[in-house]
């Protein structure tokens, strides 16, 4: 008889996390170092490009936010594949699928690692790279401003404006508050990444990037076809945006779990 204890156990989840980190901590450590060095390289390039005397200057904020946005976007694409990282090879699939933990426990851990944990690693690496860059600027006399990481809120807002300049959707929909758009779209896009990671396994990031680009360029074309005069006069409540993208996100997660559960060794 199937019981709750068969499906999910915190104790087994902890054993699974310990098993994953115990066997792969060197890989994760090198990965974190790679993230840190990548962010550091990007920031140092900007130091020498813009001479960070005014870290809060609009052009510097926009430049750094664009670079950071691209870096975090690439991070998200990369993290999509991490859900199935343990199952890239046949040997890995055998070991992971045969591990005595439930499908739900394995999925929860991998999804958490690919989303929250990896993003947390990225943010910590970003902050550390930023502080390193700031220290370098102080010691070398290249700049005397505070660490740009403290302007992260400005960067996010700047990033949103950059995105809305890039994505034509903004012309067609009137949004009372851009934060709902950012939050909802962000959740949905990540859950799409997660679903693609579970379905395709390999090249998941590239495939979801292609899908995303198709979405952002295809949607306005569709809107132009069905509403040639535009939708600027239509008011879309923020709750609807949250509701629609939230439901789509939940659907993506459920489908991702279904694909994960049906994984086989070949």
């Amino acid at each position, binding site marked *: 008889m199937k019981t709750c204890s068969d499906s999910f156990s915190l104790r087994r989840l902890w054993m699974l996390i310990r098993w994953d980190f115990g066997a792969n901590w060197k890989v994760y450590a090198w990965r974190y170092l790679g993230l840190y060095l990548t962010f550091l390289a990007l920031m140092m390039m900007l130091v020498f490009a813009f001479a960070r005397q005014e870290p809060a200057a609009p052009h510097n904020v926009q430049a750094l936010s664009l670079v950071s946005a691209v870096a975090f976007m690439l991070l998200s694409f990369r993290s999509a594949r991490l859900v199935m990282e343990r199952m890239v090879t046949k040997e890995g699939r055998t070991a992971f699928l045969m591990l005595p*933990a439930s499908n739900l426990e394995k999925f929860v851990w991998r999804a958490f690692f690919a989303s929250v944990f990896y993003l947390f690693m990225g943010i910590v690496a970003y902050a550390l790279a930023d502080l390193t860059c700031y220290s370098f600027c102080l010691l070398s006399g290249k700049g005397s401003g505070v660490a740009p990481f403290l302007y992260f809120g400005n960067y996010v807002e700047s990033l949103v404006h950059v995105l809305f300049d890039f994505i034509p959707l903004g012309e067609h929909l009137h949004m009372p508050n851009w934060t709902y758009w950012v939050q909802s779209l962000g959740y949905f896009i990540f859950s799409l990444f997660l679903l693609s990671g579970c379905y395709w396994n390999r090249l998941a990031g590239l495939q979801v990037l292609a899908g995303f680009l198709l979405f952002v360029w295809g949607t306005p074309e569709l809107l132009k076809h069905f509403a040639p005069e535009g939708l600027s006069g239509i008011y879309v409540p923020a709750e609807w945006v949250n509701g629609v993208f939230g439901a789509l996100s939940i659907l993506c997660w459920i489908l991702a779990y279904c694909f994960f559960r049906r994984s086989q060794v070949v």
Partner: protein
Amino acid sequence: MMMEIKNVSFGYNRKQTVFDDFSLTLGEGSVYGLLGRNGTGKSTLLYLMTGLLRPRRGEVLYQGVNVSLRRPETLSQMFIVPEEFTLPKVSLKQFVSLNRPFYPRFSDELLCSCLRDFDMNEDIHLGELSMGQKKKAYMCFALATNTQLLVMDEPSNGLDIPSKSQFRRVVASGMAEDKAVIISTHQVRDIDSLLDHVVIIDGSRTLLNRSVADICSHLCFTELSSGELTGDELFTQPSVHGQSVILPNRLGEEEGTLNLELLFNATLAHPEKMAQVFNEK
């Protein structure tokens, strides 16, 4: 029955079917040898048994539970040593520490005993071992998990000659009444003295599923010179000393030792004749 494969159909794609309405039952307390030609589906069958593959139709039950569900309590009772595997670059102690919590019946005594039989010790680093040494270490861990079902795919591949006899000793010492070991291999000479039960498959057919005692009570394996052949032989094949032959065991008592290679060739060459021998008595 410990393992029941019921009317299973499976294929890797729509055009290729490996098993079609295949059934097999395996009990506990025996070491099973799973034999078959290349590409006949031995490894696939092992993966189906352990839930690593899902059949298109039919079901595979382990102690009444469908293995495709991959329940933790089912997985903790079985272990597979695949033909190819990778081990993390950690010490054996660390590896055991990370994996043993998943297997409630894990035995340190068994682990030490198996390592001793393989002339290895606990203070080894898995990243520094050769492939053969990794295989031995992994098999020691597999036996130490003390699972009721242990599945091995080509376990003697990569082992040197002394290690093969060590392997037989290790597996035999780890056996118990409530356990089953299923070994799939082409290296029949490495395991023929170890087996209690022989299963020979060919596609979707089970050509032979008999205990060694039963086989030896029905068949006699011997060497004859070409001039000694009488025509009663069920199967003959040339050997160094003349002809290796299989004769019906008319006395009905267990005689001699099983020649697994000869049995395998005879069963593949004349499956109906061999089946008839077992059905007659």
